[in-house]
């Protein structure tokens, strides 16, 4: 270990704020990227599911409309 005490390590020879702010920014950006990338698949599948449900609803509505139109007696 280069430092003798924890407070010495946190101080970083007077450069503590610079070194530790770099560390935290790196951690924050990497965490954001990792979470965003890991949830991407879930977002895509949800989007595709909603699209599919919408397409199914449209097809159903079209079918019931066609059935109604093809009945002979309605005024």
């Amino acid at each position, binding site marked *: *270990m*280069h*430092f003798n005490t924890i407070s010495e*390590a946190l101080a*970083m*020879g*007077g*450069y503590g704020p*610079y*070194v530790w*702010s*770099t*560390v935290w*920014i*790196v951690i924050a*950006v*990497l965490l954001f*990227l*990792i979470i965003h*990338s*890991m949830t*991407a*698949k879930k977002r*895509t*599948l*949800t989007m*595709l*599911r909603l*699209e*599919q*449900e919408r397409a199914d609803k449209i097809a159903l509505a079209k079918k019931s409309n066609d059935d109604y139109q093809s009945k002979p007696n309605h005024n």
Partner: protein
Amino acid sequence: MWKWLHPYAKAETTYKLCYRLLPYFSWLAVITLVSGSIWGLFYAPSDYQQGDSFRIIYFHVPTAIWSMGAYTSMAICGLIGIVWQIRNAELAVYAIAPVGAAFTFLALISGAIWGKPMWGAWWVWDARLTSELILLFLYLGVIALYNSFEDKRTAARASSILAIVGVINVPIIHYSVEWWNTLHQGASITKFDKPSISPDMLWPLLLNISGFLFVLAALVCLRLANQILINDARRPWVKAMVSEKTNKAEQSKNRATLADKE
């Protein structure tokens, strides 16, 4: 000779390959980054000129190296997509861009934080810093261009061309410290003679450089798999995945209504 490569032109094969490689890259990234950072921050000796502020090197240099490495691989993917019309390569361009942009951002920020105590300025308009900033704008340009087309084939082609044209910036960044007068220090590792850095400082740096490469690889695997999923939305294998998800959602909904009735 290249026949083993052919199955990977099929999207589903590449999708599976991404998820097969992902755990290896992730664990290697965790191991190298944690050990490299702890070694670099707490165990490496301090610099005889810069004191402990030099420890920023363990985050600045890896992100800077891979901001250029990611850009080069993105441009190569763009070239493959344009020349051989391989869709997976076009998707890889858009998978790499956000990760590369984040690395470039980190290299610029950590450089600025290092510059303040050492140079007395957060930012100077010299060649190395300016060309790295242009790299960030190139990444953002690729992302913006891809998103501005409704037709994703056109989008991929346009952003691939931008990526290929922009690759001229990479050697400019690398050689900027030799070609122009600059505050930025010269290369310490990639010199032809012995590296001018003590092995006690070099080993954690090499660990972190490989660590950020594994992070890059793992994130690109995830993002490429997602792009393939979006691109193949109308294909049976993706539809099967979607309907499986729908069934699961319905099952849980039914279970919830049953629980309500009880």
